[in-house]
């Protein structure tokens, strides 16, 4: 049986879940430290929501064990739920309750009473900017963005050790997304946050670390630079310069033989937009710029290192796991 340590807020050890014939989770293991904001990513049907539902005690894993704040979810689900705030996908809320009444009701269920209940409700309302007229409105009359804020206010109402937010920005406009991002930013350090989202730019900005799962397997885990290092080969630079292609090629040949020109586009007044790519990793961008500037035949106006975004990492990580999966099935078929 797996044992938990208080070093982690969340620990999943070998979680396996099957629905009928479909195996949704395959011995999924990961850990999250206290106060971290972790992005939980994966394509549709990867097993994200199932994992979250196991962590909240809503469903049981067929095998493996999950711990929240050092407590086993399977053995003591109620103690876990006392320490957990959860906002599920689509954020279901009772339509005919007023915002404040809803939060009071949920607070009582989470063990808040009397003065503490009043304080926590007003803090949550204020924190999610719902404390003025919105708190007296019926939930059914609220816009999508306000409803999401009510969902987050409810999740953090009892100051949980762990907050799980499943797609908190789904269907929101850019202004509302920015607001939710600020809310998540304010949670940093106060509670451990697991954030599932399909908006990768959102995760890139908000999260300290990223977990990527695909077909029930953990395919990547780490900070953005760590994942970049693991999944993205080489470097890409974008240059706007004046000079001949031959001169540029000569500089590259002399100092960076692995680097190639992959794009050459003429701009106005003899300026060119050039993309340079190399398979080498950790090539210092300033060295490349310095060498280009030393050439008398080249004038550099703009210079940018194109860093791999989370989207590139996500695609690379999930593609690699699909490749592994398909080669394994081919091997089985051949055998």
């Amino acid at each position, binding site marked *: 049986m797996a044992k938990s340590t208080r070093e982690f807020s969340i620990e999943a050890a070998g979680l396996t879940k099957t629905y009928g014939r479909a195996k949704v989770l395959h011995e999924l293991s990961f850990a999250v430290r206290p106060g971290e904001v972790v992005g939980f990513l994966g394509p549709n049907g990867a097993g994200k929501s199932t994992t979250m539902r196991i962590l909240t005690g809503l469903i049981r894993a067929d095998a493996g064990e999950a711990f929240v704040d050092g407590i086993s979810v399977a053995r003591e689900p109620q103690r876990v739920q006392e320490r957990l705030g959860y906002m599920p996908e689509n954020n279901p809320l009772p*339509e005919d309750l007023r915002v404040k009444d809803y939060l009071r009701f949920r607070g009582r269920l989470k063990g808040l009473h009397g003065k503490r209940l009043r304080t926590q409700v007003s803090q949550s309302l204020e924190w999610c900017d719902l404390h003025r007229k919105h708190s007296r409105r019926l939930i059914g009359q609220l816009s999508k963005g306000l409803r999401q804020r009510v969902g987050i206010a409810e999740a953090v109402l009892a100051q949980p050790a762990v907050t799980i937010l499943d797609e908190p920005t789904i269907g929101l406009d850019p202004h509302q997304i920015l607001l939710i991002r600020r809310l998540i930013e304010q949670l940093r350090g106060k509670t451990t946050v697991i954030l599932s989202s399909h908006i990768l730019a959102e995760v890139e900005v908000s999260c300290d670390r990223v977990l990527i799962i695909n077909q029930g397997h953990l395919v990547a885990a780490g900070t953005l630079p760590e994942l970049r290092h693991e999944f993205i080969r080489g470097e890409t630079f974008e240059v706007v310069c004046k000079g001949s292609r031959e001169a540029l090629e000569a500089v590259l040949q002399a100092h960076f033989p692995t680097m190639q020109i992959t794009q050459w586009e003429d701009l106005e007044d003899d300026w060119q937009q050039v993309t340079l790519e190399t398979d080498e990793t950790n090539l210092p961008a300033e060295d490349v710029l310095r060498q280009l500037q030393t050439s008398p035949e080249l004038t550099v106006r703009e210079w940018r290192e194109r860093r791999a975004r989370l989207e590139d990492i996500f695609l690379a990580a999930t593609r690699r796991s699909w490749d592994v999966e398909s080669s394994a099935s081919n091997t089985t078929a051949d055998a």
Partner: protein
Amino acid sequence: MRRLLTLIHYEARNLYASAATYVAAVLTLLVMGTWYCVVLFDLSAQEQEAAPATLFFGFFFVPALIFVPLLTMRSVAEERRLGTLQTLLATPATASEVVFSKFIAAYGFYIFVWALSLSFPLITVQYFDQPDVTQRLLEPGPLIGGYAFIALSGALFVAVGIFSSSLTRTQLVAGMLCFSIIFILLVGVPVIQNTGFAPDLNLLVPEEFLAYLQVTYHFDDFVRGVIDTRPVVYYLSSTLMVLGLAVLVVESKV
């Protein structure tokens, strides 16, 4: 306990905020009031052996068949459809607390509506103001026995309603399921026995036991003012069993 009280308060509020509850209550009182009038007209036309309360409560199955499905069909099915059942069970509230709170709120309203029917004899007595009419209409034995029967059988019916609602996310399906199960509980065993559909049934299960399982079997004792522990055990245990099944369904279908 505090959590259960919070949930009961929430469920009662949900019930009172729902139009279906009022439609059900008005329909039930209308049917019961009409039936009480029929009983009074029969009494005035010719001498009846049975007490008016006995005749009135003999009609209990009609309100049960209308009222209980309308009252309970929304309880779990609607929460499941909206997804709020999931968020409710992600709090420290257990499935048993959720199911029992829904049961207590619906059962409380069921009893409240039946308690309103006590106004029928009281209004009649006020209107006629004759000692023999008062004595006949407010005879304590049949009245107390009748209401005790309504309270006990009602617990089972409401539990069946909550269970039916836990099986589906469609209110209409839940209502139809509840109606069908209560209908079978009321007429199932006698129909099987009388039609000879299962002639060996009495060999397998003693007739006495089959009769004991009939919801209507204990009615006569109650309206005579005889309150036996056997039917009390039957109704309470079957209510708990049905609610237990509902808890299992809620736990497994989150």
